[in-house]
């Protein structure tokens, strides 16, 4: 101890003459810009996916209904409600928010005598910090799950431009598990899928490497996983919550992954369908497309004796005769159908109902009939020259290619249409031209402008990779015919497709015209149905707008024994067909049990 030790403490008195550091009005101190204060939510961006609720370890978040917000495609209509009796301001909810709508303001002062105030819906309930832009939001470069898709292996354009070999190679186990890992299991996809497939559940099965469980989940709602896993229009992916800040999940390829891994010979054992008790009733199905196959599958499981009448020589409907093999190999259709056959479903091919077998016969011989006859007729532009013999319907050509017939292929072809079928025929022609002439000269044109074509973006991109020309935004005016030969398609720039009332009424800039040179034209502007088999009972049926037969939610027509579904009711779309078939099967069962 020293004198210094006695004197030094008194130096503290020197602080008497310094400016005090006390904050004068602590209530008005602003928090740091990134402070984790009270929650905010952009409710217009939020889709109510519930990921915030899922991660909250305090169970401080509930998804609740909000007045004026209804569920719609891609939006559950629910919004997070925060309970500040539980919240610990960890901000993990902000970190995992799939849309980046949820954040925290840097406001931290709030006084209320009502405890209920501390449970509120951010962005909906009036709070003073709702317009505060400062606060904690997820930083770019910081993610708690991958926002990028696992790349899908596919054939290089040079490898696929002359062949019909399947171009998408499918996931390996590692790839599938990595992609499945990205799923946040929000279920927005399930709500949107017409068949309401248990998508998060089968994706979880992939993560758990339990593919048998995955197959069981697939077959609960979809008996065509190989088909659907390849060519489904994947509305689920469009609404996938990951789409909002990254790539949507490859749901379609994941579904395909499950089905691809399991041989058909094991299906009955896995799905426990080795012994089905028959109920002695019979159902006839018209058309072996997705709707008919789906209805047949579920009816067979219920014990019905099912017979499918199909006009073509093989099952699959539009999936076989409208979709090229490079997208959907025939053996994959066969795999799905063979399992359905193994359940006891009978097929009678080459039989046109209404011609070879009258509908009345089916009524007599069966307890109920389901018709899912599809859209097998093409539509014409009806522009001058469209009656030329070298003007074809895409659907007819695709069918011929499926049958292995040689088509009347020209060196210069123009396809009219911008949907997926148009891309299918364009790419098919490109392959055939490449094989036959060693070069590609096919152009697809449509009314819709670039970026708003009805075809999937990937279809357009891949068509261009295969050297097809896609020139959208033109309306066909005339097919130029000279000396009996087609010379080209005259088009005018399309200004708009729909009028002010939203009706299809295209208008053209006639000052801006050009000619696509061609020896052959293929029209692909939509398909029509052929329901001539109902001619004898037509007066008993009710027709709705666009000439479609009106059916109940069970797909029962006005004639109680006749159920109708698929593309002719709700298409064209394979997953709608499957969903229709499933619902119709349940409807038929209900109808027959109540008889």
């Amino acid at each position, binding site marked *: *101890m020293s004198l*210094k*030790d*006695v004197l*030094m*403490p008194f*130096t*503290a008195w020197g*602080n008497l003459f310094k400016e005090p*550091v006390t904050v004068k009005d602590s209530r008005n101190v602003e*928090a*740091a*810009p*990134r*402070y*984790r204060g009270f929650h905010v939510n952009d409710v217009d961006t939020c889709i109510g996916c519930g*990921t915030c609720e*899922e*991660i909250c*370890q*305090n169970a401080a978040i509930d998804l609740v209904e909000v007045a004026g917000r209804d569920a719609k495609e891609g939006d559950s209509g629910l919004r997070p409600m925060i309970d500040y009796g539980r919240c*610990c*301001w*960890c*901000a*993990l909810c902000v*970190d*995992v928010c799939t849309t980046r709508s949820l954040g*925290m303001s*840097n406001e931290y002062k709030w006084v209320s005598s009502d405890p209920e105030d501390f449970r509120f819906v951010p962005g909906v309930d009036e709070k003073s910090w709702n317009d505060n832009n400062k*606060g*904690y939001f997820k*930083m770019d*470069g*910081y*993610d*708690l*799950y*991958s926002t990028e898709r696992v790349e899908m292996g596919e054939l290089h354009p040079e490898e696929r431009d002359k062949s019909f070999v399947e171009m998408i190679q499918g996931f390996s186990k590692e790839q599938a598990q990595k992609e499945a*890992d*990205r*799923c*946040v*299991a929000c279920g927005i996809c399930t709500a949107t899928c017409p068949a309401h497939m248990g998508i998060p559940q089968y994706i*979880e099965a992939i*993560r758990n490497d339990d593919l048998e469980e995955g197959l069981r989940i697939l077959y609960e709602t979809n008996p065509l996983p190989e088909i659907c896993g390849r060519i489904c229009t994947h509305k689920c992916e469009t609404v996938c919550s990951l789409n909002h800040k990254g790539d949507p999940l490859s749901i379609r390829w994941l579904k395909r992954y499950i089905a691809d891994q399991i041989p058909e010979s094991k299906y009955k054992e896995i799905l426990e369908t080795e012994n089905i008790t028959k109920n002695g009733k019979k159902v006839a199905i018209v058309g072996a497309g997705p709707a008919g196959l789906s209805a047949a599958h579920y009816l067979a499981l219920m014990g019905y004796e099912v017979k499918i009448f199909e006009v073509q020589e093989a099952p699959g409907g539009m999936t076989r005769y409208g979709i090229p093999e490079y997208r959907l190999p025939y053996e994959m259709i066969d795999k799905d159908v063979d399992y359905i056959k193994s359940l006891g479903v009978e097929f009678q091919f080459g039989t046109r109902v209404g011609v070879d077998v009258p509908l009345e016969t089916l009524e007599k011989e069966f307890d109920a009939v389901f018709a899912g006859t599809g859209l097998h007729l093409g539509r014409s532009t009806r522009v001058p020259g469209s009656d030329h013999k070298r003007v074809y319907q895409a659907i007819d050509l695709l069918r011929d290619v499926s049958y292995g017939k040689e088509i009347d292929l020209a060196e210069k072809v123009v396809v009219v249409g911008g949907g997926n079928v148009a891309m299918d025929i364009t790419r098919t022609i490109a392959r055939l031209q490449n094989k036959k002439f060693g070069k590609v000269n096919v152009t697809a044109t449509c009314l819709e402008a670039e970026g708003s074509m009805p075809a999937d973006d990937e279809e357009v991109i891949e068509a261009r990779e295969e050297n097809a020309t896609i020139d959208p935004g033109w309306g066909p005016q005339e097919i130029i015919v000279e000396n009996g030969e087609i010379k080209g398609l005259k088009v005018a720039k399309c200004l708009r497709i729909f009028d002010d009332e939203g009706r299809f009424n295209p208008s053209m800039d006639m000052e801006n015209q050009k000619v696509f040179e061609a020896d052959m034209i293929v029209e692909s502007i939509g398909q029509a149905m052929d329901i001539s088999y109902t001619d004898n009972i037509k007066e008993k049926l009710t027709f709705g707008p666009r000439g479609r037969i009106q059916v109940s939610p069970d797909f029962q027509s006005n004639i109680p024994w006749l159920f109708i579904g698929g593309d002719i009711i709700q298409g064209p779309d394979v997953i709608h067909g499957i969903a229709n078939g499933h619902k119709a099967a349940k409807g038929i069962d209900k109808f027959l049990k109540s008889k």
Partner: protein
Amino acid sequence: MMLTFKEDRSLFPETGKDGKPVIDWESGKFTKIWQGPVHPGMTGNMSLELTIQGDEIMDCVTHVGYLHRGFEKLMERRRFIQCFPICVRVAVPEPDFNEYCLASTIEELGGIEVPEAADWMRTLLLEMSRLQSFLAQMGGQGSSFGLGLIGQWTVWARDLVLDRFEEITGGRVYHMHMPPGGVRSLLPAGFEARMTDTLDKISGVMEEVERVMLNNSVFKTRAIGLGYIDPKWVDEYGITGPNARGAGVPKDVRKDYPYLMYDKLDFDVHVEYESDVFARTKVRYNDILTTIDLIRQIVPRIPKSGEFMADVPNVLHWKIPYGETYKRAECTRGEYGYYTVTDGSGYPRRINVRGPSYTHAVTLMEKMAINLNIADTAGVMSSLHTYPPEIER
């Protein structure tokens, strides 16, 4: 003339075969009193059940209280990412070590490589955490001997560090800035200048603390020779950090088992040999100066941009393969560690927290309290620097 408490206080009572004092309640010479709980933020929610004779403690039983219990079990029932809001509460004044240790066990078991920028950020956050925790302890140490002014100064200085935490992480106490895989963000613009200003202010405060506390005859009189830790206890009881270094044992995880970026930094481990409260206070004082210097070294080396978060599996269903690991870090009180066991599921099979408070507050305090004057108990307790939630975790 200086007053001391150097007289031998260990004449009575006798000790039994178990080494415990023989307390004859019938004799009427002994009284049982409870010290604490006082303040939940420091050591206060921990209570000492004291058997005294006069003002001298004959026996001591520690009770860690009911604040923040059962963290390990809570974590075992949550997904890995959900453990983070829990783990930070294991040691309220030093949440970052829990975050770092847990995150690094998950990263090792899950095979995640953390970007270098994140490692720099983590090093900064851990040193900032050490700084603010040391400052809080320094104030508590002074206050336990009646030097309230030290508390006012160091708690203000600590608040300046919390301001810097707030601007990086958005939180003042629970930062949660080190999820497995990296950090939530890099430094905000202009941070270096503000941090430098903060460190300058704290350095100024520390000069005053040295004059008013370490060169204070009253403090010295009470602290020197008080709360002696026998160096042989260090290994015997698992004593680490300043409590070991004050006893002449240079234990420091940053040097002994370098982690993060410590092997790229220039610093010394401070050792004192007297092993009393004063020696431990001096070690902590020098540690504060070292930490200030380390932060000055770290901040300019943190990248301004680039990757700061690894590509981690989806945290909502991250399953970690079977395995076990132990990760440690040097907190203000010594070795902090997380022993994590995984069984391939989405939940930790076992998380065991190795907090320095358990050994220091329970084993050591019960030993050191014997023959202590009641008035010195708080000072000794404070010099051990313990956080009760870390004990009953």
